[in-house]
């Protein structure tokens, strides 16, 4: 389960907001999460980001990615390529995230050495860690708000920002977390901190989101730092550049485009 942070797809990793903040006291956990889910992220976006993996000895590895995504009726389509390091350069993913939770996503993987694209499972891949990072595919993709029950626990001030603290528990037992606690900024409906608890109820990972600022009138999270407490491993995602409402055609999100590269 991934909360609003889940909304930060690898290509969006963004949250936008221009919602008048009135009547907070009346909002339930469900309503807050729904509003965060409904935040305007533009119709399309292009992102360049750097992902740094840090192991328990402090050794670092970097991945550089470029992605494009766009929203269509009941589906968000995205295409992503690795620009670095050399051993994964050119590897591409095409994803059609279906808004209907009962329908699996469609995913394809392009392997440049084989010059071949193959369909991969849309459901099981979500629970896998993404290219050695501490983010699962689902952490970076969409999770339907209605897949979890959301409870407003309290309000807190984090880094000078008033936040709601929301506990989200999955309705089905097949989720990899037992619960997720999110700190949602009241001014922007952006998650600034998220705690992920494993099936045993122990704290597994903490995500700190920082450098949240507006780009083209859209609130954008520029840095995400995930710490896996159980594996003593960290991943830092930095957004190098982002553009909203780009000129993109739906043929950008096809297997042919995946084989051509970005």
């Amino acid at each position, binding site marked *: 389960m991934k909360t609003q942070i889940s909304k930060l797809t690898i290509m969006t990793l963004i949250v936008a907001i221009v919602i008048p903040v009135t009547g907070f006291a009346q909002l339930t956990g469900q309503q807050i999460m729904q509003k965060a889910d409904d935040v305007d992220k533009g119709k399309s976006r292009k992102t360049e980001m750097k992902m740094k993996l840090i192991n328990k000895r402090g050794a670092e590895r970097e991945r550089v990615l470029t992605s494009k995504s766009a929203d269509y009726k009941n589906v968000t389509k995205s295409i992503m390529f690795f620009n670095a390091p050399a051993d994964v350069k050119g590897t591409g993913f095409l994803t059609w995230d279906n808004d209907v939770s009962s329908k699996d996503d469609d995913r394809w993987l392009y392997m440049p050495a084989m010059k071949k694209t193959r369909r*991969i499972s849309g459901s099981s891949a979500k629970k896998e860690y993404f290219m050695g990072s501490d983010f699962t595919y689902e952490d970076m993709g969409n999770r339907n708000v209605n897949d979890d029950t959301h409870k407003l626990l309290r309000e807190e001030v984090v880094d000078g920002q008033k936040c709601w603290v929301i506990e989200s528990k999955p309705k089905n037992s097949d989720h990899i977390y037992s619960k997720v606690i999110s700190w949602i900024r009241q001014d922007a409906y952006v998650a600034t901190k998220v705690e992920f608890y494993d099936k045993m109820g122990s704290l597994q990972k903490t995500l700190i989101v920082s450098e949240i600022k507006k780009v083209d009138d859209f609130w954008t999270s520029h840095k995400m730092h995930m710490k896996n407490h159980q594996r003593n491993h960290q991943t830092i995602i930095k957004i190098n550049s982002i553009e909203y409402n780009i000129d993109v055609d739906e*043929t950008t999100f096809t297997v042919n485009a995946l084989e051509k590269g970005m």
Partner: protein
Amino acid sequence: MKSIVKILLTTIFIMLSGGVYAQILEFNGFVDTYHAMRISDEHDFLSSRSRLRGELKGEKGKSDFFSSMNASYNNILPSESGIELREAWFRYTTKNLDLKLGRQIISWGQADGIKITDLISPVDMTEFLARDYDDIRMPVDAMRLRYMNKNMSAELVFVPVFQSSILPVQQNNPWSFIDNENAEVFTEVTSPDEPEKIIINSELGGKVSFNLSGIDFAFSGLYTWNKTPVFSSNFSPHFDTIYLTPEHHRLGMCGLEFSRPQGKFVIRGEGAFLIGKRFSPVAENYSLGLIEKNSLNMLIGIDWYAGKEWMVSVQFSDEIILDHEETVANNEHTILATLSVSKKLFRSKLAISSFVYTTYSPEAGKISLFDRTSLDYSLSDELHLMAGVDFFYGDEGMFATYSNNSEVWIKAKYIF
């Protein structure tokens, strides 16, 4: 073929130096070295080769190009050493069309490691299957025109000049399927009977593909040649030498394929109706020459994404010779199955994989198999160290020929 490559190289040269500078230009590549030693008593090297691969690609506006070259040194097969142009193509793309011209790899189908509809690019079997499959597949000089929209694509492929697969027939090649040392009858491979390099011998293919939510499927048709030769045989007057002549004949193919995710599984299928395929006759009917039959080649595969970076994949294929006769050397059914298991560990730094091919002869009730099990450790993002075992087994069938070629191998690859 050479003329096309020259044209392409000239085009690239013009793009680079003629004032039409590419807006984006990248140079990449790798260096790798691979050494394999026979497990059985002789412990001799079955492969020992090193390679530098350089890749150059550029882009300007709607056009891009790619070229790759290998500089290889082969310690076992000196004839394999040298510089080789692998790919060299130019592409022009519009919103719905792209035209790719030049030496390129064309990969059709859903199967892994088995060719059902994937009949355009020939294969280099110099070391049989004991190579990475991307090294086995050979590029072809071709023109590929594609139309695409958001859910479908249609492509037309034109291959003007025939190019044969490469089989291990050299006597000094440990992977040669010809063994004259212990044979009562000496075998000699004569010059191949290849099609002339004239336009009437060109190949033409088309494919229409659909990528929809929940399913991919495609229909294809190809007017080609059997790239992997079939051997006709003749004996010397004293019957002490058999002469094998590699022959290539026209071949038609109608194919279909699909791929469908189902929860943690992906089901893949592929089928080809092969028209006018040639088969060798049984030895006592060698004088008949090659026998022409139609055949049906089908494959079904299931990939299981088991979680925690485990992946299991099985494939089963059966080629059925229609209207089979006893004079045909091949069995009516050629059954081939594969099992692939892989697991990534330590945040994908270590990959363990095993890929098993097995053949089954229903008539003889015998199997043969080939298993490549390997470890791939990423010492850094640029340097990979690999080691593995290739195991051959069988009394009869495709892999039985190499039952003495089981080997251990090591490989290092630096990517830049």
